[in-house]
């Protein structure tokens, strides 16, 4: 494909989406998927800060075995609100609503998502859900943990209903976001883009959306039943009238295990996008990553029983869930090997995103492999409901999802804002986040082995020195996150101008200017080539895509 000289006269550059309109109304009533992504960005980060404050309060309380700063009920409410805020207000919406909203239409070569109005409704529902949940917190908040296990969630004297209604609204918001992505991927692919040449981040968001749309309704029903039970005492799970509380755990975890994959799959999508670009190499195996993405999305629904091994379910059913849990681990392992092999014979730009990739890789594999250990049933008996589980899911959520979120924030920063962040401060931030994380959560693995149960306000004295270590790590991690945030905010205003494609990537979202114009591409692109083909030069790709 000889690159004929670009003959047509370059039209006057279109104003980018930030300058196209201005004023508060243009933001609050926008239909542009990029602006909605920024609205989500601000609200999701503020919720992350709120959850972080709860976390630091918890860690401070655990400095001494007995009372340190707060009493039992306040602590119990605090760990519930930390869970609810982090799961539903930050982790589940984070990568899909921010980078999914911003990048997915551009990677599809589309002008916008399938239903722009629905996208804006989804943001307003998110804000409404957040307000109701936080109002629930001030009205006394609940102390049932983010899992709301019955019968305690039916009979706790604390206020469960407002928080449950807030999460229900957040559920509707994420169903709408998922629906929007699925329809966009099915109907808005650019001319010539087949399913086998779609970028990997789009595949990951597509898989996540399937889980969002199919699992969240079951959460909605489970929490609605808890709300009904707590308000009207309908006794749906009440054992004194024949109910069985374990059934609540079944329908809750039918949602919540796919939910943990909803949190990690977009992170994997970000990593599958960063690694080929920054090492300038085709991914080791495109099909392996796509097959394991869809595999996780489907098999993720089959494994919820491994949360119930000690909950009194039958041994046969527990065995069945055990085997299925091993399948899911294989898909994650394939992805990890494919990323690592993609680095081979690449030309790797050692920048902040690659550091975040490395910490993601190490922490996710370490955390993920302990997940397989937990799915081994006889070991799970000792570990269930101890700090080993707390450490395991923090390794996956903070070590995996948050690291990938920060990696994406740095990787797509030039594309979203047209400016470059300070590389050195970014690197220091990345290393500090990694150190802070390890100091916080590795002691918790050891606490788990010692048998320290979860959600303990006061604990036997001989665990104390590990808790002190973990609290120190928590404050270090909090500081590192603040440093990274200020570095990005600083670069927003004073960062040097970044070109349209600072990483020299061949993926479709880098074809357009940074920050992109209102409808992403000046001319509708023809994207019939492989977005990871680095044997083509950048000009060849641009000419091929933007030619008539």
């Amino acid at each position: 494909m000889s690159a004929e000289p670009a003959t047509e006269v370059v039209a006057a550059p279109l104003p980018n989406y930030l300058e196209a309109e201005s004023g508060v109304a243009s933001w609050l009533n926008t239909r542009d998927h990029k602006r909605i992504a920024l609205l989500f960005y601000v609200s999701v980060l503020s919720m992350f800060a709120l959850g972080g404050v709860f976390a630091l309060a918890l860690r401070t309380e655990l400095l001494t075995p007995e009372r340190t700063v707060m009493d039992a009920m306040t602590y119990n409410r605090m760990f519930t609100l930390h869970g609810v805020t982090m799961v539903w207000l930050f982790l589940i919406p984070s990568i899909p609503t921010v980078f999914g909203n911003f990048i997915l239409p551009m990677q599809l070569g589309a002008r916008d998502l399938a239903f722009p109005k629905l996208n804006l409704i989804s943001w307003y529902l998110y804000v409404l859900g957040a307000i109701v949940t936080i109002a629930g917190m001030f009205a006394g908040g609940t102390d049932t943990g983010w899992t709301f296990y019955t019968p305690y969630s039916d009979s706790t004297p604390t206020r469960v209903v407002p928080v449950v209604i807030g999460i229900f609204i957040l559920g509707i918001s994420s169903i709408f976001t998922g629906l929007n992505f699925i329809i966009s991927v099915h109907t808005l692919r650019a001319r010539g883009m087949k399913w086998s040449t779609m970028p990997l981040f789009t595949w990951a968001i597509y898989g996540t959306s399937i889980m969002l749309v199919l699992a969240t309704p079951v959460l909605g029903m489970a929490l609605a039943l808890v709300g009904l039970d707590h308000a009207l005492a309908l006794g749906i799970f009440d054992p004194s009238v024949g109910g069985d509380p374990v059934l609540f755990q079944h329908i809750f975890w039918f949602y919540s295990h796919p939910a943990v994959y909803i949190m990690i799959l977009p992170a994997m999508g970000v990593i599958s996008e960063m690694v080929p670009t920054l090492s300038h190499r085709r991914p080791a195996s495109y099909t392996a990553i796509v097959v394991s993405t869809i595999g996780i999305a489907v098999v993720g629904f089959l494994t919820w029983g491994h949360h119930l091994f000690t909950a009194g379910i039958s041994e046969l059913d527990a065995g069945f869930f055990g085997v299925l849990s091993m399948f899911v681990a294989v898909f994650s392992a394939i992805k990890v090997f494919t990323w690592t092999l993609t680095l081979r014979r690449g030309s790797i730009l050692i920048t902040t995103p690659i550091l975040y990739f490395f910490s993601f890789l190490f922490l996710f594999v370490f955390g993920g492999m302990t997940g397989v250990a937990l799915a081994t049933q006889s070991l799970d008996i000792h570990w269930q409901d101890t700090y080993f589980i707390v450490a395991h899911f923090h390794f996956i959520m903070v070590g995996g999802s948050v690291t990938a979120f920060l990696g994406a924030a740095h990787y797509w920063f030039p594309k979203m804002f047209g400016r470059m962040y300070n590389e050195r401060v970014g690197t220091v931030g990345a290393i500090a986040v990694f150190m802070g994380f390890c100091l916080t959560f590795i002691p918790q693995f050891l606490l788990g082995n010692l048998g320290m149960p979860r959600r303990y306000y006061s604990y036997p004295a001989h665990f104390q020195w590990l808790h002190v270590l973990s609290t120190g790590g928590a404050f270090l991690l909090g500081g590192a996150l603040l440093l990274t945030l200020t570095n990005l905010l600083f670069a927003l205003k004073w960062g040097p101008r970044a070109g349209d494609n600072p990483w020299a990537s061949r993926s479709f979202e880098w074809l357009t200017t940074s920050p992109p114009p209102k409808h992403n591409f000046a001319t509708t692109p023809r994207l019939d080539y492989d977005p990871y083909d680095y044997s083509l030069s950048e000009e060849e790709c641009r000419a091929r895509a933007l030619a008539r």
Partner: protein
Amino acid sequence: MNPATVTNWLRTMLFLPPESSSVAASIDHLHMFVILTTMIGSAGIGLMALLFILRYRHRGEDLAAGRAPETQKTTPAWVEWGIAGGLFSLFFAWWVIGFGQYVRVRVAPEDTYDVYVTGKQWMWKFAYPDGHHSISRIYVPAGRPVKLILTSRDVIHSFFVPDFRLKQDVIPGRYTTLWFEAPSPGHHEILCAEYCGANHSTMRAELVVLGPTDFARWLQRGDGSTTTPSPARQEPTIATELGPSQPMSLVRLGEAVAAQQGCLRCHTLDGSPHIGPTWAGLYGAKIPLQGGGELTADEAYLTESMMDPLAHHHAGFQTVMPSYLGRLRPPEVAALLALIKSLREVRGQDVRELSLPPPEVTPPAGAIGQPTQPSLPLLQPIPRGPDAPLPATQGLPPPGAQPWPPMRGRVDVGADGVQGDEKR
């Protein structure tokens, strides 16, 4: 380097509690096999990635230009399938071993010594086949399989014995079982592992494994006195040492009676509001009455309220208290009074700060009373098993010494029953 020292070193390095039940050893071996493979696997992948990043880092070539085709080669499919198949067979092997042990742990053998365990909001109650029953301490014979038949009176708890590597959720309305066999005598800590309310963290108990002779003697005398060496205690404990049992202090008895008779379901001991008036700071306070007027809460008023709650009803509370006339024996009434008197100066939280109105709908499944303040836990911290000292070698304060930082809010109940929430 015989295998015993290796496993012992690994068990200490992994911070695992001493192996005190028959299944603990085999579970720990699988534990070490799985965790070591995990660590080696993740370290290996991390190292490989680090090497690739350094080895193939960008050396100034023009990134915009196309790169040589041989750098774009993809991994053949059989490598991917090989990795996937190899890993799955490893995970499947873990599942096979794990499921075998899981079934062995979950299904009890035939001739077991059965003990009925009832989990109740924030305490464990044990009932033995010969009619004995005890609170917060269970005595089991060594060397014989013991089956615990567990149920709960209110919410889901979880009976967790770290030293035995065993845990089983305790579900209201159903029996679940947990069996174990402790080869040698000792003391083991029982923790509640499923969140069950305010005092979930102090719902602890002690599992005492007695040798055959001691157990037989205990069955007759039933007071737990044995000849096994009592362990080195870190802190004085409210429960009696395992020497000759001293008479329980009146306040402790009051507490037990309050729990058994269900007073704690409506009255709290720490000042937080609930269905009934809190007992913290009740004794000697001025009580606003339903029909107007005021009354000081002395022994007479408290006793009368137990027998005929509606006589001088405390304003602002629902009239739901049942009469205890004929259900409380005089010593139990005296014990309850001692308990209420002992809470005289316990400053509970300010009621307004909690802004927690008593729930309008009286919860059907047993009202969950407000927490007893941890400053008065039913049972003090549990000493470690005597035979294998806690893995103190990892920089933990040696047993017996005051751990750093100095423990605050520790309650030392002397024989005279006076205690309080001294803040050192």
